């Protein structure tokens, strides 16, 4: 991941996805009485930029309503962006339509949160996984398609694939269902996968297996992932880089271990201080945050985090901060990013 500010000059060769100032505003339906009044908009995604390289997993974290799911749906073009660019392998896919859009679906696939909802209960495993091949016209003969399906199931860890292929979703466990969803994404040999909370519905003992499977796939095929999650512990385990979203903006982004070990943005710091740790002897620091999440319809002036920030000053209330880079690949949307960076210790030895 390379911050937008540096993208123009930096080498772009191995970048699969470049997102530039991506915006999605939803217009709210007007209540009858306020007819003729100003249109209210929810600024779900309000100008985010990032890039993902070949074989890289970027974690997008944030609390519910921060816009992370919308960001994923924009990149897969399940939603139309209000503004900005999505350069995918050199082509801007933000505005493509019709046949081009269908052809593009082959390259970016999505894995959804709920494997109980995302699979058609009347489709067998084979039918669910072969469907994308039929729609996109991949595989010339039935035998070829069968071969691709079996390989995808095997890659997703559904073994023996030949035996599971005739089963229906109700005959599968939650973990197996999510693996079918992974196989369905894999079968078209995508160049990019967006996974939206793929493990949060799964049972604890199943979760780790599905996460390890995705890491294995990344290693084997070098498929880059955008991994969307509310759980920063999961994001750390899965990702090379992390973007922390707050009210439609990426508040901080950088290499995972930097974000975890040397967070700069006060929001990231609060998030990390609040995460429970599976260690009964861990001493928790105080969480530096106040108040509640403001409404995304009425965003605060200036820095959108200032209403909850314990370090906020006059400038934060008035001026919206730009991304400040504290290292070449670690940046934060905070006026005082450099001060915070220099006052935190090195991430070297944690524990």
């Amino acid at each position, binding site marked *: 991941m390379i911050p937008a500010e540096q993208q123009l000059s930096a080498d772009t060769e191995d970048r699969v996805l470049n997102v530039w100032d991506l915006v999605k505003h939803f217009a709210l339906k007007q209540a009858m009485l306020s007819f003729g009044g100003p249109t209210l908009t929810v600024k779900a995604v309000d100008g985010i930029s990032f890039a993902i390289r070949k074989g890289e997993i970027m974690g997008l974290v944030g609390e519910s309503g921060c816009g992370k799911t919308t960001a994923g749906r924009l990149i897969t073009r399940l939603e139309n962006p209000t503004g900005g660019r999505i350069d995918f392998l050199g082509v801007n896919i933000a505005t493509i339509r019709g046949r081009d859009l269908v052809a593009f679906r082959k390259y970016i696939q999505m894995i959804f949160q709920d494997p109980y909802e995302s699979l058609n209960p009347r489709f067998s495993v084979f039918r669910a996984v072969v469907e994308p091949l039929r729609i996109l016209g991949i595989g010339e003969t039935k035998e070829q398609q069968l071969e691709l399906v079996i390989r995808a199931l095997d890659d997703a860890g559904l073994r023996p694939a030949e035996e599971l292929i005739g089963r229906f979703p109700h005959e599968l466990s939650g973990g197996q269902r999510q693996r079918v969803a992974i196989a369905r994404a894999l079968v078209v040999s995508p160049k990019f996968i967006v996974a939206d909370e793929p493990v949060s519905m799964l049972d604890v003992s199943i979760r780790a297996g599905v996460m390890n499977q995705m890491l294995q796939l990344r290693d084997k095929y070098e498929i880059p992932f955008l991994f969307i999650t509310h759980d920063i512990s999961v994001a750390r385990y899965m990702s090379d880089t992390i973007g922390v979203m707050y009210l439609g903006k990426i508040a901080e982004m950088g290499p995972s271990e930097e974000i975890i070990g040397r967070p700069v943005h006060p929001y990231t710091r609060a998030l990390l201080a609040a995460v429970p740790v*599976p260690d009964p002897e*861990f001493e928790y620091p105080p969480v530096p945050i106040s108040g509640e999440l403001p409404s995304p319809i009425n965003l605060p002036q200036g820095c959108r985090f200032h209403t909850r920030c314990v370090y906020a000053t006059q400038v934060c209330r008035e001026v919206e901060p730009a991304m400040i880079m504290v290292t070449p690949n670690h940046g934060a949307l905070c006026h005082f990013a450099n001060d915070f960076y220099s006052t935190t210790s090195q991430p070297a030895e944690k524990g």
Partner: protein
Amino acid sequence: MLLDIQDLVVHYKIKTGWVHAVDGISLQMEKGETLGLVGESACGKTTLAYGISQLLPNNAYIKGGRILFDGQNLLALTMRKDGRLREYEPKLNKIRWKQISMVFQGAMNALNPVHRVGDQIIEAIVYHEKITRQEAMKRVEHLYDLVGVPKDRIENYPHEYSGGMKQRAMIAMALALNPKLVIADEPTTALDVITQNKILGRIKELQDRFTMAMIIITHDVSVVAKTAERIAVMYAGQISELGSTREVFKETAHPYTSGLLGSFPSVKGKIRRLTTIKGNPPSLVEPPTGCRFHPRCPHVKDVCVTDVPPQIDMGKGHISFCHFAKELAGSLSPGVIG
């Protein structure tokens, strides 16, 4: 002793047979103590909680065991001859909510959408205590202070609350009558970590102040690590390990606990590869023979398939239901964090 559960068995009757949701559980709790009840979905943890608060549905049959609360045999009050609970038992009103209250899973659905939140709490108070609505209102204001919701929100309807505020209102309602035991079923699962942290902190404060005992039911071992003094790990309707949170995390004595702890990522310490538990949770209609964890256990031996494991005492009140607890102890703690 506040709560003494002895060999409780609760089965659900379904078309295809019996679901062995709680299958011989014994558990004791002292006044003011926090117990974490951990396990995966459908391991019986919610059934156990509903059994304690006498809220089991109509197809649940209590097949054996006793629940003593503060010395009183609860099942003697409510159980019918066939093992089901009476739907309405006036004698229970002195206990339910007044002495044992619950914070339900999913506060979003637990509040009545057509009544003001404050009125719902006041209703609970005036039903159980002989005080006026004005006095009850005073108490609600005080409770809102305690759980950290602004007082001007008392008059609002549930849809005007955020998720975190609804959950805090539910906690206020659970505390309204100063109960001796609060059962919290996944109280923070639907909330983001910052709100979760605030609520867990608030619960702890209130508990210390009012010597309230609490059972926190969750699938998240880090929430238990943070809040509970003791932990009971449940698997397939039974307790597999029980002990102080420190002992269970650091001196793990059951392979299932080990697998559970090993599959949790953390933001602290070095990244370690997460371990997985093979297979899937078993059906509770036909639970596995012998040790119920044997089909998934990496240390399985012949005896595990045939014999139900005995209770093995690991010292300091730490017990394990694994044939090889003593032999495996020392090699089972993946939860050791750098």
